[in-house]
């Protein structure tokens, strides 16, 4: 098989796999959530995953932790959220601070 065909197979195969995982999750019967431990865990899962995503997005590098303009930008985002700023203000504010800090070098 050519390299291009193998890459296509990986692209399409992984896409099908990712879709089936999404559908599987949505298809789990709601009665399963009746158990208190499962219910608590299901509520905590997005909290845990999103928090991990924040951490990796802000400090992650190629196989190492990297402190750069993303960290003060996240601090500004947290401050704005604490002050009750709207979503777009938080996101644009963080991006603008990171861009300015990088411009200043």
């Amino acid at each position, binding site marked *: 098989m050519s390299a291009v065909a193998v*890459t296509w197979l990986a692209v399409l195969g992984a896409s099908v796999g990712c879709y089936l995982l*999404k559908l599987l999750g*949505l298809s789990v019967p709601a009665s399963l959530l009746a158990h208190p431990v499962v219910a608590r865990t299901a509520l905590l899962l*997005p*909290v845990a995953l999103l928090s991990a995503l924040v951490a990796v997005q802000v400090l992650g590098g190629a196989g190492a932790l990297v402190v750069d303009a993303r960290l003060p930008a996240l601090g500004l985002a947290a401050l704005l959220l604490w002050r009750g700023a709207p979503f777009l203000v938080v996101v644009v504010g963080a*991006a603008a601070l990171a861009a300015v800090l*990088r411009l200043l070098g």
Partner: protein
Amino acid sequence: MDALAPDQRRAVLRQALGVGVATGAYGVSFGAVSVAAGLSVAQTCALSLLMFTGASQFALVGVLAAGGSPFAGAATAVLLGTRNAFYGVRMGALLGWRGARRAAAAHVLIDESTAVGLAHASSRPAARLGFAATGVSVLVLWNAATLAGALAGSALGDPRRLGLDAAVGAAFLALVWPQVRGRRALAVAAGAAALALALVPATPAGVPVLAAVGVAVLGGLLAPRGAAAPRGAAT
């Protein structure tokens, strides 16, 4: 969805569009990175259209760029995609969709649509609108940006220069913010972030975020005995 007041509906749609713009813009960098990793423009666009889960897409092209095999890339992408299944367990009960609607909803079941849907968990119509509008908004803008990034390649410049990488972190923080209520949720959030950071230097891309599943399970198991299940509460 017609149970929603017009101003509430507008607020949800504005939030969905905001998330779409913030996340979609980063699709430019995915398009550029993917082409740089050796994928064709068509393969790059197929990933954004069919896989449509950013972290998995970045993982696949990241493995290829680092010299890994296409199958290693695919395995990493699917492994990372398991978190969408966990989102689905939560969203399935909240959305209450069956058949074709569920099959369509599954395609846009991603971090952002889950987070916006959960932000309106107190009302099913609002949760459905937030989930679907965010999913479609991100789908359209992410794919348009991917195509632009793939065509322009690195000529468009480093998205980091515009602070777009910081915008993604800020967006995830804004999404998790309303969900972190109570000591247990705060402990889980801090624990998951700390564990992910500890794992970044030691594990392949994708594993640090997946490990957060363990922290959530621990948080669910360790909750005080006799406490009422916090179902529907934004804990």
